[in-house]
């Protein structure tokens, strides 16, 4: 490919990065114009991304790199670009959602005291995410992996005056950092075993037998723990709900569409390695399936609309992981792609509500349907898509996953997936019914109106995509499945074969979803509050268990957080008392000994002279070497010494 094209593709991540530096350094000068810079940069990046996608479609994968650190035979790292079909779709999604969010944020963040800084970090995030997506090796991936974590930290903590936001940011960073450390160790293992960090070369090395068996599984599990941290899978899911303290557009971009999907993307990216360890694949599948179910149950009882959507995100990411784990590669990534649109839309809808009124609690809302029609209808579309109702986007990918689990004989996972479908439909429509139907419950809800156009336009665009994005992967014309496919190698290992589209399974999953919506209507439709109330009374312990997030956070607090603090105190005290005490004690011992020896220093000049003479005699005796003289001399020395000491002046 030509240098011009390379430059153009490089510009995709570099432009937002430049925008970050400009906005961060000159933010005060730029002020309110920051959003125009951001939107312009993102639009450009989006157009370039589309161009890259076009190039990939016509010419195949793009790949080039420059040396970053070169140690000759000692190994070298490069920073490069690898845009294959997977990455091409991903960068388009990232730049597109990012563009939408930048548009939306312009109005949403109006009047914020750190307006330019917000856009700066948002752009840094976009740049990092793009850098991650196009990474051809683990080192580059890790670099940007950490950077998106940083951006997430900064954006969750954007309103850092609020202790809740500050603590949530801290929690998010630390929890994901645990995953990152595992990922790092995984990278270290790969480096040690294969001497490279490139995805392709590691895969080849593994095929050639340089790494295999338990070690390969261990390395992959560690890499997967990294993905678990980023994608908020069990047991590192605890940060994502708290992360909702950040501005809502941030949640839409980072905690729904892009960054949290990075974990899934990582597994997809390294799929050729993963498929070589069936044990690792099983772990991925079961962690994913379990997370999907668990998060869905937690979402059932939440009152905060953003948290409901957050748990939904955890749950949906679990789906994707499960899909990858069972070998339904295309389905998993297809779901990621669809999910990005409808989940971003859900968050933007929530953001619109926040914009109109200050509370996140759905029971403070009510009756918003008439007052905020655009928000309502887009939310319904997104909800239907999430619930997997035909023919919206979510249906196509979710159905592929459910069907995949069935066809590959993972019946437990299939059962979990179906239950999750039901729960998903229930909780999202519970939120929609409570928030939008009936009568307003507060003054704020009564006064709510739809947000300005700059915010609704992205929502409408995303709504359209929530309906239609899945249509490129229908069984009639499976464009997506023909484009993003596992490599021939992975397909061979997994023995993937074409399956006919199962209408029965599709009908089943849609029916389950509709049943969920129906139950939600039965319990939460206007005038039926007593149903929910009686259900709550009957299942109070279960409700408490779910509301306390299965007590997982409490468990972590009691064990890890307390443990680390106790250890910290112990080390501090050891350092202060023990170690420093030992050194001080040594000093004391020396001065004690000195004090005891002090009488020897009589201060009398002649006393010293006497000792000199005695020492000379002793030395002379030694030099003479005659044993007798030596003994006598020493005897004399001892006698004289004791007399001299006795003679203290």
């Amino acid at each position, binding site marked *: 490919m030509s240098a011009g094209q390379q430059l153009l593709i490089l510009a995709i991540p570099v432009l937002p990065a430049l925008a970050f530096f400009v906005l961060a350094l000159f933010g005060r000068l730029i002020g309110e114009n920051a959003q125009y810079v951001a939107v312009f940069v993102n639009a450009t990046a989006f157009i370039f991304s589309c161009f890259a996608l076009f190039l990939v479609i016509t010419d195949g994968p793009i790949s080039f790199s420059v040396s970053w650190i070169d140690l000759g035979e000692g190994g070298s790292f490069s920073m490069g670009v690898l845009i294959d079909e997977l990455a091409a779709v991903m960068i388009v999604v990232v730049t597109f959602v990012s563009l939408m969010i930048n548009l939306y944020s312009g109005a949403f963040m109006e009047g914020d005291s750190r307006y330019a800084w917000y856009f700066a970090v948002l752009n840094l995030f976009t740049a990092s995410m793009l850098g991650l997506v196009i990474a051809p090796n683990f080192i580059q991936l890790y670099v940007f992996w950490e950077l998106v974590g940083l951006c997430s930290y900064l954006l969750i903590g954007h309103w850092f005056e609020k202790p809740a936001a500050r603590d949530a940011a801290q929690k998010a960073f630390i929890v994901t950092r645990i995953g990152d450390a595992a990922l790092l160790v995984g990278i270290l293992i790969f480096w040690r075993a294969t001497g490279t960090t490139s995805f392709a070369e590691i895969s080849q090395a593994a095929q050639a037998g340089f790494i295999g068996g338990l070690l390969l599984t261990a390395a992959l599990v560690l890499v997967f723990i990294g993905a678990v941290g980023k994608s908020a899978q069990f047991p590192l899911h605890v940060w994502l709900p708290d992360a909702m303290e950040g501005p809502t557009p941030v949640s839409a971009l980072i905690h729904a569409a892009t960054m949290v999907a990075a974990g899934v993307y990582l597994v997809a990216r390294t799929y050729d390695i993963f498929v070589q360890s069936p044990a690792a694949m099983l772990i991925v599948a079961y962690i994913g399936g379990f997370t999907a179910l668990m998060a869905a149950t937690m979402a059932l009882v939440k009152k905060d609309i953003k948290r409901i959507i957050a748990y939904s995100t955890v749950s949906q990411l679990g789906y994707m992981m499960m899909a990858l784990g069972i070998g339904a590669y295309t389905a998993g990534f297809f779901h990621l792609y669809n999910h990005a649109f409808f989940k971003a839309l859900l968050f933007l809808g929530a953001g619109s509500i926040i914009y109109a009124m200050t509370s996140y609690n759905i029971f403070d809302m009510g009756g918003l349907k008439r007052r905020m029609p655009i928000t309502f209808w887009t939310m319904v579309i997104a909800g239907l898509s999430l619930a997997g109702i035909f023919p919206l986007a979510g249906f196509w990918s979710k159905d592929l996953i459910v069907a995949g689990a069935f066809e590959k004989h993972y019946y437990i996972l299939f059962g979990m997936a179906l239950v999750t479908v039901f729960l998903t439909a229930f909780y999202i429509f519970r939120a929609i019914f409570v928030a939008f139907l009936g009568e307003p419950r507060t003054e704020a809800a009564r006064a709510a109106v739809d947000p300005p156009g700059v915010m609704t336009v992205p929502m409408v665009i995303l709504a359209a995509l929530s309906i239609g994005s899945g249509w490129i992967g229908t069984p009639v014309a499976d464009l997506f499945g023909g484009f993003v496919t596992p490599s021939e190698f992975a397909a061979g290992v997994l023995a993937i074969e074409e399956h006919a589209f199962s209408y029965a399974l599709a009908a089943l999953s849609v029916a389950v979803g509709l049943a969920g919506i129906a139950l939600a209507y039965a319990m939460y439709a206007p005038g039926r509050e007593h149903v929910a109330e009686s259900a709550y009374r009957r299942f109070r312990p279960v409700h408490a268990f779910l509301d306390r997030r299965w007590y997982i956070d409490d468990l972590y607090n009691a064990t890890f957080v307390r443990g680390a603090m106790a250890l910290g105190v112990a080390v501090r005290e050891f350092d202060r008392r023990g170690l420093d005490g030992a050194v001080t004690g040594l000093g004391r011992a020396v001065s004690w000994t000195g004090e005891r020896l002090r009488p020897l220093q009589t201060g009398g000049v002649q006393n010293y002279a006497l000792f000199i003479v005695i020492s000379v005699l002793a030395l*002379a005796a030694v030099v003479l070497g005659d044993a007798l003289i030596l003994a006598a001399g020493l005897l004399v020395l001892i006698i004289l010494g004791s007399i001299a000491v006795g003679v203290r002046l």
Partner: protein
Amino acid sequence: MTVAFVVLAALTLLAGLGVVLSRHVVHSALFMAASFLGVAGFFVMLNAPVLAGFQVLIYVGAVTVLVLFAIMFTQRPQARSFRLILQRQHVPGLLAALGLGVFLAYVLAIQDWGEVSPGQGPRAVEDFGALLLGAGEYPDVFALLFQLGAVILLIATIAAIVISRRRREEDEL
């Protein structure tokens, strides 16, 4: 010769003991002068009359006078008791000094000095000059040491002046 040696040795050593043991400081100083004279006599016997001259001039003359002056400046009524002029450590001191003397005498006496014959040293003043300036067949290290000695004397003179100078505030004491 032997007689002279015995007399000189007796003079030197007894006078030395006198320095140590006499109760009066002035007596000590005079005994010291006597001892120096004995050493000067030895120098004459050892074919070094020049050194003997130096010895008399510097030690018997200058040093003794200096010491006497110091005694004049610092003397206060002396204790009459002999014990009080000595340190409390006089017994170990005596033992140590005896040990040293015995040891030195023993070592120097049993040592085989090889072929010895008197009359080897520089006898004339001219030879001394050559020796100190490192000329002739003598080792040339003395040229340097000689100059160093000169410098030391100069410094010592200055130092003595500085140290013993009365300061104004001391006058008030």
